[in-house]
């Protein structure tokens, strides 16, 4: 074998060995199967619909990916979505100002993120526990604020949730914009490098002069802020902010991140991978609706896909050792 082919061979091997590849393959299989199984699947309208459905999970997952890459985890995102939506809706209702409503939703998200950051970096509470607490607190506050009854939230918020630009859902465009920003952040900037270094070996990063606490605080704050944006979009889409909004989202979000090849142990992960993961989750949801299968099966299948994708990875790594 000549040197060139062996090089190409090893490069191909390296690509095949990535979890993104397994997920991309599963994604392709689902696409082919659905194209054959349902004539409505491959229409512009349906695909844009999938994109819109994927957008909130994908956005929140982008920020979650940074958290997990830095060796943290944010379980509170689902509740923060709910609290932000409710806060935004109530502020808009009380003040009659659309701008303040949107500002309120984003600030509520950011405040939750900063709360998590402080619990972790100042009080040294394990992020799993800290965000588990915040998850419950944020959900409780949304219930208290609304008395359990949904609040109407239309106007500008509906544009975020249901608006279109050139026929493309605004939330999808927003998600793509965020993806580009996060990609550049992760791969080209000092902040991104600090995040990867902190997750790969926090002690070594600290000893190398990286401000590990500030890095950790930043990713949690960003995660909260993006969850706030997610709440705005979800509520806008329904034109109503229910206190239960976003319940269970943390699981879809973390699943998308893990499917995308991010290591829970920190230090590894890619933004394109996260997009693939989120897309797969949305596509599965769409497939079940189109095929008319009970949504209960959808829940089971989501779990199976996560286990399958990570298992392929684990078996391959196991063989390497």
């Amino acid at each position, binding site marked *: 074998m000549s040197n060139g082919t062996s090089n190409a061979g090893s490069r191909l091997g390296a690509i095949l060995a990535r979890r993104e590849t397994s997920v991309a393959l599963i994604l392709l299989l689902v696409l082919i199967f659905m194209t054959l199984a349902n004539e409505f699947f491959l229409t512009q309208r349906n695909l844009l619909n999938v994109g819109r459905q994927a957008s909130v999970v994908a956005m929140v997952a982008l920020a979650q990916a940074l958290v997990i890459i830095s060796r943290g985890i944010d379980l509170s995102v689902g509740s923060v979505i709910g609290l932000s939506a409710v806060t935004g809706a109530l502020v808009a209702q009380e003040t009659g100002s659309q701008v303040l409503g949107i500002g309120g939703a984003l600030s509520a998200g950011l405040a939750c993120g900063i709360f998590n950051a402080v619990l972790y970096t100042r009080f040294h509470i394990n992020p799993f526990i800290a965000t588990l607490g915040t998850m419950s607190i944020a959900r409780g506050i949304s219930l208290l604020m609304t008395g359990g009854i949904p609040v109407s939230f239309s106007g500008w918020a509906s544009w975020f949730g249901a608006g279109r630009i050139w026929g493309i859902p605004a939330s999808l465009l927003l998600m793509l914009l965020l993806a580009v920003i996060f990609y550049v952040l992760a791969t080209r900037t*000092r902040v991104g490098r600090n995040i990867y270094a902190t997750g*790969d*070996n926090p002690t*070594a*990063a*600290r000893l190398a*002069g990286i401000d590990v606490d500030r890095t950790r605080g930043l990713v949690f704050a960003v995660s909260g802020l993006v969850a706030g944006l997610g709440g705005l979009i979800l509520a806008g889409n329904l034109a109503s902010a229910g206190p239960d909004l976003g319940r269970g989202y943390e699981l879809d979000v973390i699943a998308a991140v893990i499917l995308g090849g991010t290591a829970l142990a920190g230090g590894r992960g890619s933004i394109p991978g996260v997009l693939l993961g989120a897309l797969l989750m949305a596509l599965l949801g769409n497939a079940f609706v189109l095929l008319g299968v009970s949504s209960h099966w959808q829940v089971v299948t989501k779990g199976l896909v996560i286990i399958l994708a990570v298992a392929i990875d684990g078996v391959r790594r196991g063989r390497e050792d």
Partner: protein
Amino acid sequence: MLHGVDLSIAPGEVIGLLGENGAGKSTLMNIVSGSLKADAGRVLLDGREVQFGSVRDGIEAGIRFVHQELSTIGSLSVAENIFLGDYFAGRSGLVDRNRMTQGSLEALAAVGLEHVDPKTDVDTLRPGQQQLIEIAKAIVVEPTLLILDEPTSSLTPFEAKKLFELIGKLSASGVAVIFITHKLEEALANCHRIVVLRDGKLVSDEAAKATDKARLIQHMVGKTSVFEWGGSVMQPGQPQVEIRGLRDEHHLKPIDLDLNAGEVVALFGLVGAGRTEFMETLFGFRRAAAGSISIGGVPLRLGHVPTSVRNGIAMVPEGRKKRGILPSHSVERNITLSCLESLSRLGFIRGSAERTGAARLARALHIRMATADQQITDLSGGNQQKAIFARAVMAGPRLLLLDEPTHGVDVGAKSEIYEIIHDLARKGMSVVVSSSELPEVFAIADRCVVFSRGDLVGNLGRAEMTEHDILRLAFANH
């Protein structure tokens, strides 16, 4: 590690085992107790050859090894720790608490802890008391051979006295005891024989009555020094770093130290002397309780590593895997980690500057790698260590702190690292190297600062540096 060591011990005999760090004391005892396998040679017990597959086998044959590091389980009670793994559980599988408590009381009385309630959780006790619990655990069933690794390092003088009474009693009832220590007086006063290891060889085996402190130090030091000193011939540079009254919250006494530009200063001390604590406090990684540092006359904010790095301090920590490398990152990204600020503009890293910067250092430090994009874990240990060096150097420090920089690297890489250290000093850096190997101190240092028990006890210029004096100082507070 070990080279053809012969050692015999009679029932009731107490042997003191001495040697510098890394002389092979622990390795030897690990082989005897069954936790390591010998490459060659035999262990005989009562004249019969034994082969231990595990520590369990050793314990069953009556050999108990009490390690220096605590292995008590904090959340279990004293009694449960003493009878760990054997709770008098009968056929029912239930733990017999009464017998455990009874047995514990006897064992506790034997080690002088009669006032401790067997039901208390171990993590409420002081480290010294926990050490005694470990010894209690080892003697519940009377052993044939008891090995103690620096048992008195965390004990009060009173507890130590009690322990030696216990050793006397055990010896009288026929238990053989091997006693590893750094405290020479202790060994001379309480052992029958004293054995010294150096570089894995047994260099002396004498009756305690027939030897003395000076003679033992002589044995421990030897005189071979593998590496030639290539130290600076330049005039001592300008004062660069001034440390006043620096101490941490636990280990250190207030430390004063001045460092000149272009000078290599070795920090010598026994394990636990406080060298690492001092360096980490100086670097800001560990909280300072008091003191001040100034670099080039400018006072430094204490306790914040990013500030220290920005103001010209860099550190190569001990423990490459745990504290040095970013295992999932490339060699290049490992090297540039400490100077991303200068490599970026408006927060964006300039890729070309990063590549050329890393390549320049990889060349200067002779890092052997296929490409700079290679994952760092693909390199050999010595080359990984050089990459961590490169990281510190690339930050452009005026004060470079190196904590055991040649631990776990081979001889070739070792001499390369010594050359790098001298090169850096010649460029005007102050270099502080913590080392527990005397040959290394002589190979690199312009000056040797000796630590003992958290205190700076000696500051010897190159002309005054002798192995004897350095060791005498290192043992000063023992």
